[in-house]
């Protein structure tokens, strides 16, 4: 009986160890595109932490800016807040979601001379 319990406990433990990585939050590998409803392209590749490490971006506000009376404000960062909350897909007279991503991502790659520029490099 005791031996059966040990085996069961061992199995349970093994199962937990196997399941844990799946339960814990996975690292971001692509930029979420659910806000677009029916996306036309594959989600853009973006390994959040690795990207920012390689690109030497310590300042979260470089991307996660805040809202300063209708202007983007890098000095009051909003990490974790989805861009879509301030940039709806249809934003008349303001920066809509797709343009927000393209201008931020491609804009910096253009300025810094590094990182992908063409559709197929991000939407693989």
């Amino acid at each position, binding site marked *: 009986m005791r031996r059966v319990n040990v085996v069961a406990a061992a199995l349970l433990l093994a199962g937990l160890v196997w399941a844990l990585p799946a339960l814990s939050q996975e690292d971001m590998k692509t930029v979420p595109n659910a806000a677009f409803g029916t996306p036309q392209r594959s989600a853009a590749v973006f390994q959040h932490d690795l990207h920012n490490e390689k690109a030497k971006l310590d300042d979260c506000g470089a991307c996660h800016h805040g809202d300063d009376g209708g202007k983007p404000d890098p000095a009051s960062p909003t990490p974790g807040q989805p861009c879509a909350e301030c940039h709806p897909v249809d934003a008349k007279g303001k920066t809509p979601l797709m343009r927000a991503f393209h201008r931020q991502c491609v804009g910096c790659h*253009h300025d810094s001379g590094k990182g*992908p520029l*063409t*559709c197929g*490099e991000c939407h693989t």
Partner: protein
Amino acid sequence: MRELYEFAVGPMAWAAFGVFLIGSVIRLISMYSLARKKDGPFLSYMSWRFGLRSILNWLIPFNAQGWKENPLVCVTTFVFHLGLILVPLFLLGHVVLWDQYWGFSYPTLPEQAADIFTIAVIVACLVFAWRRATNRTLRFVTTGQDWLVLLIAFLPFLTGFLASQHVGPPLVMTTLHVLSGELMLMAIPFTRLSHMIFGLFSRAYMGSEFGGVRHAKDW
């Protein structure tokens, strides 16, 4: 490659659109003054009614006599021109760039429809080439420029399709695509491709002559 791409979507894009627009205006003005000098009296015969009538009739597939006599050419020509106009203007990949750089956008073709039109244009180019190579009459009137112009129209569609299907390195394919598109834009005013600018005018001119002077159909 990165520098070449930046050049292609930067200064080169300005140059290409500039050459296309300014070149087209210059060609239109000089053609108009040439027509006035050589065929001045006739310009007064230009008629909206006969001009539009002719254009309209030529726009209906299998309506004109020439189309009826050559169904393959008719279908190929219509499909080719439809794709040639629709795909560059209404492709998602192009409108995304208007949106990114200029902040405006408009409805686009469904991606599948764009793929089908693109393949159709590529096939149409091959049909045109095949006819030029095999049809004796056509071979007789074909010049080097006809081949060049066919190649110039073919390349943006081929490279664009390959880039969109992720064939080859995206940056290289996209650079080739942008450059070949710019080549085509700049070639429009100065090659046979100028029928894009003059086509409607020359059709209206023919239509006016046949309708108003000879009292006959020109289709």
